[in-house]
């Protein structure tokens, strides 16, 4: 069973639908035991960092997620919450990744909305994906590039399109909204 962490309003139905399309059942849950028992855990995206983090802390889910040894995938805001610190509401993150999350400069057209490249691909998440593949992004904050960066996107500045540390994976783009290429990323994660 795949656990999709419930922590905020937003469109998590698409994640569920994408998993179902790949033949995987999932449950949207904020129950700690259920999350710990899951084969894989997805922390979906969309929302605001400080209120999302507060929700995770109130439910004790921050500690639960840190304790996971099964593969976990953060998506969009999920990726940002897994970083050290977010400029959005000056929010301390889970600190799984050693990246900080910054806001795009005011001169930029934000949110960064639409299809953009994910390049310099590394690791199992991107098996079978062309380095020219475009993914769907929608975000106003970005994670800086570190040694844990496994995909790079460039909008105003290069940033982490994906990060990986041990069993923890995350994408800034929405694989569930990125047509065939995104489907392959999810498939790769599910077959870890």
């Amino acid at each position, binding site marked *: 069973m795949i656990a999709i962490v419930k922590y905020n*309003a*937003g*469109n998590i*139905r*698409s994640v569920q*639908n*994408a998993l*179902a*399309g790949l033949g995987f059942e999932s449950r949207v849950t904020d129950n700690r035991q259920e999350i710990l028992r899951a084969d894989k855990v997805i922390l979906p995206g*969309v*929302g*605001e960092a400080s209120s999302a983090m507060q929700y995770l802390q109130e439910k004790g889910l921050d500690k639960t997620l840190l304790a996971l040894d099964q593969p976990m995938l953060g998506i969009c805001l999920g990726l940002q919450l897994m970083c050290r610190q977010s400029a959005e509401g000056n929010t301390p993150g889970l600190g799984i990744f050693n990246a900080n999350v910054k806001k795009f400069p*005011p*001169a*930029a*057209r*934000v*949110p*960064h*909305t*639409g*299809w*953009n*490249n994910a390049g310099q691909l590394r690791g199992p998440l991107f098996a079978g994906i062309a380095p020219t593949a*475009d993914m*769907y992004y*929608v*975000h*106003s904050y970005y994670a800086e590039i570190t040694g844990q960066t496994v995909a790079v996107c*460039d*909008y105003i500045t290069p940033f982490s399109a994906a990060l990986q540390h041990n069993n923890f994976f995350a994408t800034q783009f*929405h694989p*569930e*909204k*990125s*047509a*065939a*290429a*995104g*489907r392959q990323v999810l498939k790769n994660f599910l077959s870890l």
Partner: protein
Amino acid sequence: MLKKRIIPCLDIKDGRTVKGVNFLGIRDAGDPVALAKRYVAEGADELVFLDITATVENRQTLVDLVSNIAREITIPFTVGGGINTLNDVGRLITAGADKVSLNSAALRHPELISEIAGTFGSQCVVVAIDTKFTDGAWRVFSHGGRTPTALQAVAWAKEAAALGAGEILLTSMNHDGTKNGFALDITTAVCRAVNIPVIASGGAGTRQHFRELFATTPASAGLAASIFHFGEIAIPGLKKYLFNQNIPVRCS
């Protein structure tokens, strides 16, 4: 590099697509899900579903339709038409819509933009602006273009962005349906006035019109309906043409 988006728009009435659609291979041309899937396969970057009945009785029909679309398509989609309250938005987002498009309701209650942005994030609020150049100014119209307002397009776009809109969908009523090309001047003016993506709509008749839009304005996306539905322009050919014209597009 961020790609320029090509967005087909589907008009929905009572849960079915209206206007002619002549895709071969779709047995029931009125089925929005079948049409949506076809567009996804052809490389559309996003879809917009506009409920043109938008009556209270049809709300549940629309929510059900959104669930069906969300199950079948793997690109972002926007739903618009008759959205008046935060509750309406919540039902559509929960059913799987990525964004909602507000038009008359945003003009009546601009604070609705902030409420939605605050609850679901700016990325899911598209403010649709119907504008017509009349008496020397680009004036904003509500109620599907029937009712003039006191607002002008650039000022309203700025206000909407300041209230938390994540995108502007700008339709020139002077150009809509003419197939003579997009409204380049007002599109440029709105793009320069706001720091959020602008989707240009109205007037697309040829591939060259899309090139012209992307080469001469900062628009992030071009939206069209009938030229795609009637097969006058096929999306794969359009994308290839734009790519060869050095316009950044996603070629799947």
